[in-house]
């Protein structure tokens, strides 16, 4: 297990470094001068040169990259002279446009994104697992067929459609609640739930449909295994056969999928956040992109990669812990 862990951690370090390098190249090799970006379109050339010097953009690319990576662990002072700013550990760059370190900007937004992702995951798990298990246990009945037709339909629904219909019906026509705006859980737990209910539902519906289909096929497959037959032959009650021998192994792939999806959503629910105007990491990304705030864009790209890679690792570790065969490969 230790060897497996070390191998995986090493692999992750390499992958993160590659992602970091690629991101860095995208933003610094392509014809978008960060100095001009910073200084504005009508900036005089000598001023641009000055900014370049202060931002350390005249150094070779590899040196700039080295500084960037080092700063993540050690922090750094950005720029020099009268424009010097302190960027503390972990330094993911400094947004000159908003005058704050990228890390602080991201951490301000992360609770919103985490609230959205986790709340939605609870809803889609409840819906998806219930529908999937029900469908599998009632295989080839009208219940199964109805659930499966519904999942195909719901999975094809574009999020904009779900969001707009929910907003139109719940907020505009029925007037059940005001237009959602984010309230921190620590400030007002009830308001937090109320305001996130529509974004959660929007995000959860598609996933619920996919999870229902996955759960169904996984449960059907497991219930056909010889050990389930053995359990039945031993005279165990059907409840126990399904609950103990059928569901537990069937849900392992679902747990894997959940880990990956959550990792992807922590910084990746851009459309849902934009649709509802939620101040999450995804919204910050979209806004920063619109105003060409490159350090922020780059920081979020790295953060998102980090979430995806880490969730991959967590999933693999959980898997290796459950199933020793996975440790070898």
């Amino acid at each position, binding site marked *: 297990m230790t060897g497996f862990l070390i191998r995986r951690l090493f692999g992750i370090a390499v*992958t993160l470094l*590659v*992602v970091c390098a*690629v*991101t860095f190249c*995208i*933003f610094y090799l*392509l*014809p*978008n001068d960060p100095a001009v970006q910073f200084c504005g379109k009508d900036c005089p050339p000598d001023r641009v040169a000055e900014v370049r010097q202060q931002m350390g953009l005249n150094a070779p690319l590899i040196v700039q990259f080295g500084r960037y990576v080092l700063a993540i662990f050690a922090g750094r002072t950005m720029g020099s002279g009268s424009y010097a700013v302190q960027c503390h550990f972990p330094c993911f760059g400094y947004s000159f446009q908003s005058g704050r370190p990228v890390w602080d900007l991201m951490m301000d937004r992360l609770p919103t994104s985490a609230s959205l992702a986790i709340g939605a995951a609870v809803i889609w798990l409840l819906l998806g697992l219930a529908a999937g298990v029900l469908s599998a246990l009632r295989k080839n009945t009208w219940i199964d067929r109805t659930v499966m037709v519904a999942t*195909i*339909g719901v*999975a*094809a*629904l*574009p999020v*904009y*459609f779900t969001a*707009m219909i929910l*907003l*139109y019906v719940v907020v*505009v026509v029925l007037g059940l609640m005001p237009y959602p705006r984010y309230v921190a859980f620590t400030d007002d737990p009830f308001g937090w739930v109320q305001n996130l209910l529509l974004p959660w539902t929007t995000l959860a519906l598609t996933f619920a449909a996919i999870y229902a289909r996955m759960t169904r096929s996984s449960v059907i497959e497991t219930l056909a295994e010889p050990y389930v037959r053995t359990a039945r032959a031993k005279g165990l009650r059907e409840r126990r056969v399904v609950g103990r021998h059928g569901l537990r192994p069937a849900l392992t792939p679902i747990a894997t999928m959940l880990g990956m999806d959550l990792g*992807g959503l922590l*910084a*990746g629910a*851009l*459309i849902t956040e*934009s*649709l509802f105007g939620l101040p999450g990491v995804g919204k910050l*990304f*979209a806004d920063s*992109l*619109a105003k*060409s705030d490159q350090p922020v*864009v*780059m920081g*979020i*790209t790295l953060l*998102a*990669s980090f*979430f*995806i*890679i880490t969730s*991959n690792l967590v999933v693999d570790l959980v898997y290796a812990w459950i199933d020793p065969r996975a440790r070898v490969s």
Partner: protein
Amino acid sequence: MTAPLSTGLSGGAGAAAGDPGAAAPAPDPALDPQAQQTASPWRLAWERLRRRRAALVGAGIIAFFVLAAVFAPVLTAISGTGPDATDKRAIDPYLGGLPRGSAGGMSPQHWLGVEPMLGRDIFARLLYGARISLTVAFSAAVMITVIGVLLGITSGYFGGRIDTVISRFMDVMMSFPSLIFMMALLSVVQNVNRVLLLIVVMSLFTWPYIARVIRGQTMSLKHREYVEAARASGTTSARILFSEILPNLTGTIIVYLTLAIPGLIGAEAGLTYLGVGVRPPTPSWGQMIADSSLYYKVDPMFFVLPCSCLFLMVLAFTLLGDALRDALDPKGSRG
């Protein structure tokens, strides 16, 4: 008690006699085209597919949209308004530029109503938008298939160091947050044909999913007897790949191609909605959705229409893809 047993036996004997390999009087398959056709796996797949209503519905919807996109100039000539023409008479300046009349301004002049403010014809824009959405999705699908199949087949067949390099590369590509990376790339690159750029960027991040499947299938196919036989008789690797292995992957490729398209249509709409895809004067469904989201309270018809098109298209490809998967059975149990 004995009667069913004996009929069972005679039935078994009859079946054995009908087997052309076992009995001499069986008709020669080469002389009987009918028998040959029923034996073809493609024929069997087609028969299975034809019996699925979902597949027919899916194919019907796809055909409808493809024809609508292809004949967009003809159809807009009939309806009388092009995609860029603005009609100031169709909107009400005293109501903040909302369309006149009910249901988003549907009228004999504008079959599906007009956009608020500009008064552009929604029917025409949907048709021309379908052109963009479908072009992007189909081209990207072809591209990811070509890249994915080439790399997957190479990686799976040769194994060893080549496999390690390609697999690592795929792992890295898949650990990129694709939406965020696509947005970053699309926003950084300027002065390039947006449609082309969109196709390239979307393909760049989607090919590993198909490559992984192809790699796995190739790894199992390369140990089949006919591949071993070809190798033993001195056939070159390239020839084995393209004439022994690739034909056996066709079913899988068709299925994954079909199932990739709804994701690509959705991605194009999403990227355009987020403002980095197709740029405003060009009509596209994502663009229309982005515009309409501002008016969802006062002109719900405007967002219902492009969203419905997107929904139908994604649904159609999912239905067809699912049915194709069942019919072609890419898990390889066909043998």
